[in-house]
């Protein structure tokens, strides 16, 4: 594909993600940090995010399965998840975490379970989107980014078009 086209596609997709609320400005910041000295920064951060989140979600599931739910621990986990998602710009995940924390304060186990479901859902969604945008675990699918780079173009930043 043409670099321009690729770039435009990338931008449109990112735009879409922004518009749909999956990502927010923080993600642009991350993209800014990626340069020659740090070419895989975004990928590294996102991967770390995935790892972290999956671990946390696991822990949350286990914690909520207990007889006596330890709300403090749950709050700690959710806080972590909130922090991670906020650092990366995963807006919807972050918002859901905020709501989760409120429910946790109320010590409502039912509510917590529901929130957990929601968080999981959001996480999966954003994971898919991010994977599509960046490198994909499955080797045979190339991300748009890879394609652009392969075609010799630069990853366009959203800011340039403001």
């Amino acid at each position, binding site marked *: 594909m043409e670099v321009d086209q690729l770039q435009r596609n990338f931008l449109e997709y990112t735009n879409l993600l922004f*518009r749909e609320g999956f990502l*927010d*400005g*923080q993600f*642009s*910041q*991350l993209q*800014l*940090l990626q*340069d020659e*000295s*740090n070419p895989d*920064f975004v990928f*590294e*951060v996102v991967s*770390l*995010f995935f790892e*972290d989140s999956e671990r946390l979600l696991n822990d949350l599931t286990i914690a909520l399965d207990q007889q006596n739910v330890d709300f*403090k621990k749950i*709050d*700690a986990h959710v*806080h*972590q998840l*909130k*922090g*991670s*998602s*906020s*650092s*990366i*710009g995963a807006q919807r995940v972050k918002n859901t975490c905020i709501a989760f924390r409120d429910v946790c304060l109320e010590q409502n186990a039912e509510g917590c379970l529901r929130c957990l479901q929601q968080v999981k859902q959001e996480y999966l969604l954003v994971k898919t989107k991010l994977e599509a945008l960046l490198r994909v675990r499955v080797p045979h699918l190339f991300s748009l980014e890879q394609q652009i780079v392969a075609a010799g173009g630069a990853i366009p930043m959203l800011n340039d078009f*403001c």
Partner: protein
Amino acid sequence: MPWLGKVNGVIAVSKLSKRRTNKALVVHIRMELCNCIEPPWPADELLMKYQYISDFFIALAYFSIPLELIYFVKKSAVFPYRWVLVQFGAFIVLCGATHLINLWTFTMHTRTVAVVMTTAKILTAVVSCATALMLVHIIPDLLSVKTRELFLKNKAAELDREMGLIRTQEETGRHVRMLTHEIRSTLDRHTILKTTLVELGRTLGLEECALWMPTRSGLELQLSYTLRHQNPVGFTVPIQLPVINQVFNTSRAVKISPNSPVARLRPVGKYMPGEVVAVRVPLLHLNNFQIHDWPELSTKRYALMVLMLPSDSARQWHVHELELVEVVADQVAVALSHAAILEESMRARDLLMEQNVALDLARREAETAVRARNDFLAVMNHEMRTPMHAIIALSSLLQETELMPEQRLMVETILKSSNLLATLINDVLDLSRLEDGSLQLEMGTFSLHSLFREALNLIKPIASVKRLYVTLSMSPDLPEYAVGDEKRLMQVLLNVVGNAVKFTKEGGISIAAFVAKSDSLRDPRAPEFFPIPSDNHFYLRIEVKDTGSGINPQDIPKLFMKFVQSQPLAAKNSGGSGLGLAICKRFVNLMEGHIWIESEGIGRGATAIFIVKLGIPGRLNESKLQFVHKVPGNQVKPNFSGLKVVVMDDNSVGRMVTKGLLVHLGCDVLAVASGEDCVRAVSQEHKVVFLDVSIPGVDSFEVAVRIHEKFSKRPDRPIIVALTGNTDRTTKENCLRVGMKGVILKPVSLDKMRNVLSDLLEHGYLSESQMTITGHEVVKMTCSEDEVVRMLLVHAQEYKLGL
């Protein structure tokens, strides 16, 4: 004749013929012979006997008179003429002696007796002559004593009379004093008058005493007070009676006829009424007492006091009684005027107190109303804006999706209406806060250049959409930084420029900014605008000229009034409520400035000019944490290369992101996950330590304290900054308490981190603008988002609707 004794008859015999001669001779001889004296006349026995007895009594009397004299004089003790007495006594005694001795001469007596008799007579003669002579002198004296005595008696009688008079007067005086004292001891009008009448009645023994006061109209005298009897109230007489005039024309008490109307106080009976006297009592009004003058004595208002003596007593009015009455009348006048003054002042004071209470109540009510309104506004502020923005945002988003033409039209209408509503709400809320003075400017230091650049950036897109040019010219003597309310200044500028753009269809806008000198400061149309140049302030003058449709000069004054739309054309299309310029004017006034619009007429464009007072930074007394201007993102990066920093965050993603930021800025970053590791790892080479303080269950503040302790002796210990997901007041306070130099809200953007590092290295602490950010910073805006968004949307809508 036995006694003839023994006369020798020898001689006698010879001369018998000449009997008488012989007899005489005989006797003579006889006497010569016996040494006896013959009495001169013959001794008739009866006559002799009577003489003898008379002489005896005369002698007796003559001897007893001095005895009596002496006795009585001795008794009286006052007799000045003792000599006279002695003389007179001697004279009388001698006379007595003479007559006594005379008793012996009735018969034949010896020569001795005759000698004694002669001596006594001689003595008596002498003394009596002396006495007679003395008496000539003394008798007039005695007589004059008598006259003097009479004189003195008269004098004594006179003095008695006068004494009686004085006593009477003194008593009168005493009465007056007592009366005055009684009258003056009270400041109550009624008591004064009543007391007067009672005391007068008592002092003078009056039968009746009455006081006639003039009515309000001044045409009649009304019987107000009487001493003894309750006459019918409201008993009046016209004031123009001759008798009354007569009394009023003199200050003295005047006797009047008991039959005159004012004196007919007692029921007519068979008694002969006593004499009546009337006197005027001047009623001094408050107005009569000028500050420096004595009260005008030619006051026209008098009351009449009538005094009646008891009937059938035949008593008359004495002068001193009349004087008493006059004096009392004067005193009463003074006392009454004092009472009147006091009454007035008490009344005034009561009135004032009432008014005070009423005012207080009104003020409290007003305050309550204002508070209620403010509460209402505060609630509405939030409640109304939130749904509004939701509607606008979602409608905008909706617009971006695929819509059928009718749907698009509907959405556009929705958007337009909601924009209108949002603008209206914002304007009203702003204006009411402005109006009741609760709005205060948020002063800070900002860059003028960046203010204008931002405004330009915001307006350029819209202007270019309408194909208008926008030029900005800033005079070289404009200071780089100024102190003022940046946000509101931007609001005013945007509003004015936005208006210019709105009303211009072709051509463009030119913005000029310069420092106003004294001649350009004054606007002849605003004489109350007195700019006072000073060393700490300057006046910024901004002129926004457009080539638009212009304004009718007659409409110009109405532009800044609330809710007034000047142009019917604009009214149809404008998204504003007519409050924009009113709000601008308020803001400009708050900044001690002035705003006005000049236009030559319809179709000739318009120029909006405003002057605001801004401070010069550095010369003003600013707070320690200064507002450093925001460095725009496209400036040259300050070099942080090699700066050693530590980042502590237990969240791996966050840690990585923060590290990435700092690395991108050129720092040498050490990232740790726990407080323990942090304290261990921090060395003297590290300049900044970023601590995440929002980790639940971990006290990052303690970490900060320990780090400080570790480097307590070193002057250049690392600066500790907190990273947190929430900036509430307690977090901030805690951070500053443990000695952290700043608080940053996560997530941190690249620009923000850059600015933070510059700040930290420059000042050693974070400025306010770095310490708090709200939400995400996608668009760099220093003014209110609402304003810009609203404007952008409005203009975008207008464009879309083909304006």
